[in-house]
């Protein structure tokens, strides 16, 4: 056994002092290179995936059990901060508009011929409805419907709809169409007719029952498998021709109870009752309204594009402090879809009125034929016979063209 001299020991020591850190450095370099290689391989496979996606994924020879999500987000890069490069974000010119509300305009052109007891023009741009809709924040949606008619520019509806309330509630605050029956809640372009039934214009106002206030509704659980919804509304009480306000407390109250049930997969029935109470337009005395509406719908799911039927009846009773008898009104209508773009409809109408302490009754009969070139336009012809005060009858022909542009939010049922 040879004994190591002090010199060789010193060499060994020197070697260890120099070589070990060098070896460690080498190790470090290799592992960094390995990391880089891994990163490059990852990038290469990302590029390959992208290429496959661009070529159309089926060309990739992968099996379905290896299919991955297609995602626009690239995997986060694992490079060290020393290697960070700038990101080339493409300017997206449309992005600034992303928060714009959905905007749409619906035009209604109405042409009139025949006995002219309402002094209608032969052609009129009856209404232009501008609709703006968007989320306000995570809790509410904002909706504005501005109606431009030959007479005026009016906020038809403009409200915030609170959609995330607790206890099964939803609420609207602003100007809304009162939930009184069915016809009152529709906008011009949603109506199955070119006009409004006499019942609506006589009892609820020329423009319908719409006012500024708050509407709250709640669903009611029930054992019948039905959708039951109760709505309560308070309005400031100014509705032209129907309600007015003598004092600050003369508010308009409205309530609606809706019952909906599927009868079969293809048919369903809806029954609603409504009550409204407010002050007469003169600012004194009360006006109380009660209504009932029944809607039956039939639409066979597999033929839904081509055939459907809707039967509607709405009736109303009014009790006013300026007239000693109750006033009644109703309409009943039937609409049948003949073909994909063709609809035929009929309606009977009746509404009481009063003059000089005596009650009179007006009646109407209508038949209509509607053609839809597309979902965004429709042409409707309507024959209407109106008998006023049980006396003279007027025959009219209305031709209505409606056309919509822009993104119009879907309507509720």
């Amino acid at each position, binding site marked *: 056994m040879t004994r190591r001299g002090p010199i060789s020991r010193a060499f060994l020591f020197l070697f260890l002092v120099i070589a070990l850190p060098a070896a460690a450095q080498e190790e470090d370099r290799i592992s960094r290179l390995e990391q880089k290689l891994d990163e490059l391989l990852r990038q290469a496979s990302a590029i390959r995936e992208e290429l496959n*996606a661009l070529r*159309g*994924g*089926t060309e990739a020879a992968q*099996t*379905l*059990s290896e*299919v*991955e*999500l*297609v*995602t626009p987000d690239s995997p986060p890069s694992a490079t060290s901060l020393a290697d960070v490069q700038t990101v080339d974000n493409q300017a997206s010119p449309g992005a600034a508009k992303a928060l714009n509300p959905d905007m749409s305009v619906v035009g209604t052109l109405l042409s009139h011929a025949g006995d002219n007891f309402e002094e209608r023009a032969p052609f009129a741009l009856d209404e232009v409805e501008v609709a703006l809709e968007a989320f306000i924040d*995570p809790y509410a*949606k904002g909706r504005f419907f501005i109606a431009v008619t030959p007479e005026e520019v009016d906020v038809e509806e403009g409200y915030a*709809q609170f*959609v*995330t*309330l607790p206890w*099964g*509630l*939803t609420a609207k605050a602003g100007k809304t169409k009162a939930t009184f029956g069915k016809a009152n809640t529709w906008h011009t372009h949603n109506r199955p007719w070119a006009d409004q039934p006499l019942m609506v214009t006589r009892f609820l106002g020329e423009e319908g029952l719409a006012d500024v206030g708050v509407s709250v509704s709640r*669903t009611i659980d029930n054992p019948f*498998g039905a*959708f039951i*919804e109760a709505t309560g509304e308070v309005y400031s009480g100014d509705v032209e021709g129907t309600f007015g306000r003598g004092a600050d407390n003369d508010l308009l109250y409205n309530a609606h109870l*809706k019952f*909906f*049930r*599927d009868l079969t*997969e293809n048919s*369903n029935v*809806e029954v609603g009752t409504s009550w409204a109470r407010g002050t007469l337009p003169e600012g004194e005395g009360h006006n109380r309204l009660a209504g009932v509406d029944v809607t039956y719908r039939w*639409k066979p*799911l*597999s*033929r*839904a*594009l*081509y055939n459907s039927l809707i039967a509607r009846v709405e009736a109303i009773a009014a009790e006013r402090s300026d007239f000693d008898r109750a006033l009644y009104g109703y309409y009943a209508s039937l609409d049948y879809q003949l073909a*994909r*773009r063709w609809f035929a409809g009929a309606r009977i109408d009746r509404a009481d009125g009063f003059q000089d302490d005596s009650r009179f009754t007006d009646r109407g009969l209508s038949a209509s034929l509607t053609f839809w070139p*597309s*979902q*965004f336009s429709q042409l409707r012809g309507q024959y209407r016979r109106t008998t006023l005060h049980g006396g003279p009858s007027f025959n009219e022909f209305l031709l209505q063209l409606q056309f919509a*542009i822009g993104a119009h*939010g*879907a*309507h*509720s*049922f």
Partner: protein
Amino acid sequence: MKQTIIAFALSLLAGSALAAPAKLRVVTSSADLASITREVGGELVDVTSIARGYQDPHFVEPKPSFLLLLKNADLLMVIGLDLEIGWLPPLIDQSRNAKIRPGSSGYLDVSRGVEILDRPAGAVNRSMGDVHPLGNPHYWLDPANAVRIAIQAAKKLEELQPANAAVFQKRLNDFKGRMNAADLRWTAALAPYKGAKIVTYHNSWPNFMRRYGIDVVDFVEPKPGVPPSPSHLFQLIRMMKEQRVKVIVMEPYFDHKTPQSVADRTGAKLVVLYPSVGGAKTGSDDYFQLFDLNIATLIEALKN
């Protein structure tokens, strides 16, 4: 006596504590999503679809009865790409369920993770018909996208019910395996017809036909959602004769009169393929059956 009461009370307590966690209530906009989610969720989920397989998914009526479903849902899964734009937003607004609003944890738009075709390159407008500005929403008819839908469903179910993550993963892997085996079978069956030219009524089949190499040369609709005009049909008939197109494919919810008359004049065969699970009265109860049925029908027509 006292002891019995105590024992009874204890057993009640124990019973309620040991009761299995409630099933996740999933509502899907289409029957296909429902079928795929059932594959992943199995007994742990209760899945209901709003649209039926035999109805046009673009035109579903937003009936209040659907609100009853949505009100209690833990998860709403949608096809997206504006397919449901005409009916789902008012249902969500009236659902009184903040969990399933877009952006919330109980809302899953599976178009975010699938391969989408026919994305319009430039600006779109309605002179082009009822185009989908975000791309063709009928993407679920590619088995690879079915797997991608399943992956997303599993991820979401895990998120909502972490205790059962392993079950969802296992079922997902099982689904992937079965889907792969089935796809190999379907690909082999259709291999002899690769490159065959067909016409379809609506553009519902780009993902399906591309996967199996069938060439869709035109549509009975001149533009998406627009019923055919005589001049378009005239051109279509001429083109079909020139290119010897022998098959017209239509969806079950369209009227067969027009495509049948085109078929009669060109000697082509009109067949109904079902774009959604449950579209046919029998034999389309899940995603696998749907493809078995469609592919058998298509082969039968292409044979001639």
